[in-house]
């Protein structure tokens, strides 16, 4: 009996550091790792693998700026490749989402769910402060392997959508102790179905601190589909608020 009690005590003691930070603080610290604290532009290259073979590649330029009122990012996405999609644009500003096609010169308002469809799931390349859109619960401490199969001591968090702007209904999230590096995430649909598994990797210095510059997303519904993301060409840039008007979409120029 005494032995069991001691083991329990040891387990509790092992999780004690986790209790020093709340789940929300852990998520917010991880947000600071992922997202620069100033308006910026990045170029994201998405490579899709089907049954292990590279297939399509999408290149997107993303302009991101935090809204001081909501502390959430506003995003403007421009398609660069493939050629058939070049020039298409998506505006994502809270609940206001517009898709612009320069071929038809038409702007169509889209629902948050439509962030997850199309040649590239826009929802996966957005700059998002997860701590704003999700309410987290700390499930415990776990050592899991990262994308390079290296053991990482992580907090394991369960995050539920806190507002209707959250891309996914529920997210499981692993954040490394000490560094607050995001390691892994699992995304779930409204119905509770596991949709995607994401691993962060390629930690490099970008815009003032070490950040993940790559991600691998496994489609959990069809596991033969895997997409790698390479985030690069980070530039701090002044982005006027007027850029987040839908009528600005046809005016956005290549830089």
């Amino acid at each position, binding site marked *: *009996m005494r032995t*069991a009690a001691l083991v329990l005590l040891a387990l509790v003691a092992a999780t004690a550091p986790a209790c020093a930070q709340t789940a929300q603080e852990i998520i917010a610290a991880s947000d600071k790792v992922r997202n620069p604290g100033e308006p910026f532009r990045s*170029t994201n290259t998405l490579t899709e693998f089907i049954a292990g073979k590279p297939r399509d590649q999408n290149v997107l330029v993303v302009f991101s700026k935090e809204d001081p009122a909501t502390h959430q990012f506003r995003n403007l996405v421009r398609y660069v490749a493939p050629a*058939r999609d070049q020039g298409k644009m998506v505006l994502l500003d809270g609940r206001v989402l517009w898709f612009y096609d320069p071929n038809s010169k038409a702007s169509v*308002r889209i629902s948050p769910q439509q962030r997850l469809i199309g040649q590239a799931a826009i929802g996966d390349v957005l700059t998002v402060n997860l701590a704003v859109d999700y309410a987290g619960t700390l499930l415990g401490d776990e050592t899991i392997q990262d994308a390079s199969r290296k053991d990482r001591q992580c907090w394991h968090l369960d995050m539920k959508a806190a507002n209707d702007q959250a891309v996914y209904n529920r997210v499981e999230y692993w954040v490394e102790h000490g560094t607050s590096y995001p390691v892994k995430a699992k995304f779930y649909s409204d119905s509770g179905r596991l949709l995607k598994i994401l691993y962060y990797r390629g930690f490099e210095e970008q815009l003032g601190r070490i950040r993940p510059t790559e991600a691998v997303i*496994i489609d959990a519904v069809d596991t033969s589909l895997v997409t790698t993301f390479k985030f690069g060409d980070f530039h701090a840039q002044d982005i006027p*608020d007027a850029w987040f008007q839908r009528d600005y979409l046809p005016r956005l120029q290549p830089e």
Partner: protein
Amino acid sequence: MMARVGGMVLLVLVLGDAAALADENSDLDLIPDAATQPQPPAADASAAAAPNQRIYLENAFTGTARRGDLPVPFPPPKPSTWQERLFLDARKQWALGDRANVTFSDRFNLRAQDNIDFPGHENTINDFREGYVSWEALDRTYLDAGRINLKSGVAVGFNPTDFFRTRAVVDPLSVDPTVLREDRLGTLMGLGERIWQGGTLTVAAAPKVDNPTPVYRNTGLRSFDPSFDRTNAHDRFLVKTSADVAPDFAPELLVYHEVNRTSVGANLTESIGQKTVAYVEWAGGNRASLIDDALRYGRRTGTLPANAPSALPEDSSVHFQNQLSVGASYTTESKITFNLEYHFNQAGFSRRDWDNWFRIGGAPGAASSVPAQLWYVRSYAAEQQDPLTEHSLFLRADWVDAFIPRLELTGFINMDLYDGSSLVQVTADYYLSNAWTVGGLMIADVGGKRSDFGSLPQSTSVLLKLARYF
């Protein structure tokens, strides 16, 4: 005993936890070797500077089945039963320094079909869609001049506020409203636009530079001609503004003037939950009925004799008439987006107009000019891109990664609510690679013999296409 139970519980907990973590790490086995290699550098700064352009070459073959025994005889020539078309489609923008750019958009078609001579000028059709200069005179204040495709509206199937749509579409391959917008002629105009943090103001003025011409038929298209007769046959003015009146609500209001007709319009959208967007698009103004408009236009442009009596009862009264498109989009977790819309065109055919159209057109011994006049009214409405009928329902579905990755299925039904007849189109596009797309579509006019779509001379069309993007 208690110690043993406690120990076993702990053992189960520890073993269970270890198994869960092993499962957690097994997710890594799903990553293929090729994706575990270091990724090539993300597209560099040149990607951000990539020009705004789309250039592609497409070959499309269309086969059409005709109906016989129409209730109202279709005037000659008969619609084609096949068409082969090869076209080069280009849209490109060039920067002129930091604050100006030039846009050019064009489609060059080579075509052959069974009811046009070969070789002949009808085999080469060039659609000069856009060519304009844009200058940012002040920060986010723009002045544009040239041929501009100015599009308005938030609905999908019918855009009452898209005032520059009339006569602008040339010989389309698809009747999907979203595709029709891709190949339409812009209007020669000067345009000023100011975009600020909470809204936009746009002012456009399009001068008359040509005279109105008869409604075009597929067999009488101009070869190399800017076709300003389609877009600039009158002086036209548009003012539109939108403002963020609430965090999620930015209505757009429009005022449009052409000749002595002024229309007003509005566009409203609202997001409802995660999956639904509701929208309303409305326009209204003083005008005559569609029948009266068509007949007056036909007499003015010489298609109909100036003093010929109308076969249909004519109502020349001008009064305020509405056009409305109200609907919603809904997106499922399985990547299907549905748009359901109700369309109202107050100036369109009422039930009585339809009864008259079939009764008069099908009367035994009617002069050939009578069905010709009746069909003219319908072709006029099509060229104006107005719904012919007063009440219709539109349902469109777009399924990305349908059944297999890279297959996109699109379909729509446009139903006349008076008689239940429908225009149905199903399209399949398969993205063979980033450069190549293969696809096909089928169009069917479904309905009883004496119905809107059932009375058309074409019953079904099938198109096969191959496109190469550059």
